[in-house]
């Protein structure tokens, strides 16, 4: 049962990463690609990490619980670090004058 749930979670996470890659390839410019690259990860990685943690909790022992807690720390740090990095890249691009794509232009 736990096997099944964690497999579904990991598969869903991979699916969201795949959507992120599709967006990365199809979106027209730097900023819109950042949307796809930096953030489909937020949900995808949390789903995958939850799947891992559940799988490790299959045997309810002290080391397994510790491993699960560590895995959730990874998710927490991704949640803090990922938007910060996206924000830093966007702000730098704006300040050096990378022009955003506008409707009607060709993709770059």
């Amino acid at each position: 049962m736990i096997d099944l749930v964690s497999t579904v979670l990991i598969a869903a996470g991979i699916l969201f990463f795949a959507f992120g890659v599709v967006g990365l390839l199809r979106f027209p410019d730097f900023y819109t690609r950042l949307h796809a690259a930096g953030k489909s990860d937020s949900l995808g990685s949390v789903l995958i990490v939850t799947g891992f943690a559940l799988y490790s909790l299959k045997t309810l022992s002290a080391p397994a619980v510790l491993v699960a807690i560590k895995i959730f720390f990874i998710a927490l740090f991704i949640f803090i670090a990922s938007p910060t990095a996206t924000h830093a890249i966007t702000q730098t691009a704006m300040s050096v004058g990378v022009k955003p794509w506008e409707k009607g232009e060709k993709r770059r």
Partner: protein
Amino acid sequence: MAKIATFAVMIVFWLVLSGMFDAFHTSLGLFCALLVAQFGHNLLFFSGNPRTWTVVFFGMVLYLPSLFWEILLANLQVAYIACHPRMLELIDPQVIRFRTKLRTRVSRVALGQSITLTPGTITVDIRDDEFTVYALTRSAARGCPGAMEERIGKIVERPLR
């Protein structure tokens, strides 16, 4: 007070990560936690008031579920746009500016991070109370800052006044 709190957080974090509770590894952890508490106590607990930490901490815990729900909805929307055959007609990127009602630094940072985490919008800059946000679609731009600002204000900021 901030030193003691930093030390407690650091030693718990060390014990969870190391997973070994013998004298050698625990004493190493004690030493490192002491060093961090001595030199870094004003980084984690930047405000001197213990009540502020507790309100902010539990506020963030209460806020997480609704943030996660927003992330789920917004991720589905961006996945839909990315896979849409006529994607270039759906997206209409724009830069918007708005003023926030949030007063404290913590809640402004939380709002900025939430806006960036929910796909479709990126916080470019926060200057005082003015947010600059880059939005992927017109509807994402209209929905910003939306319900998240209200929630952060209700959970984190109101108890602090």
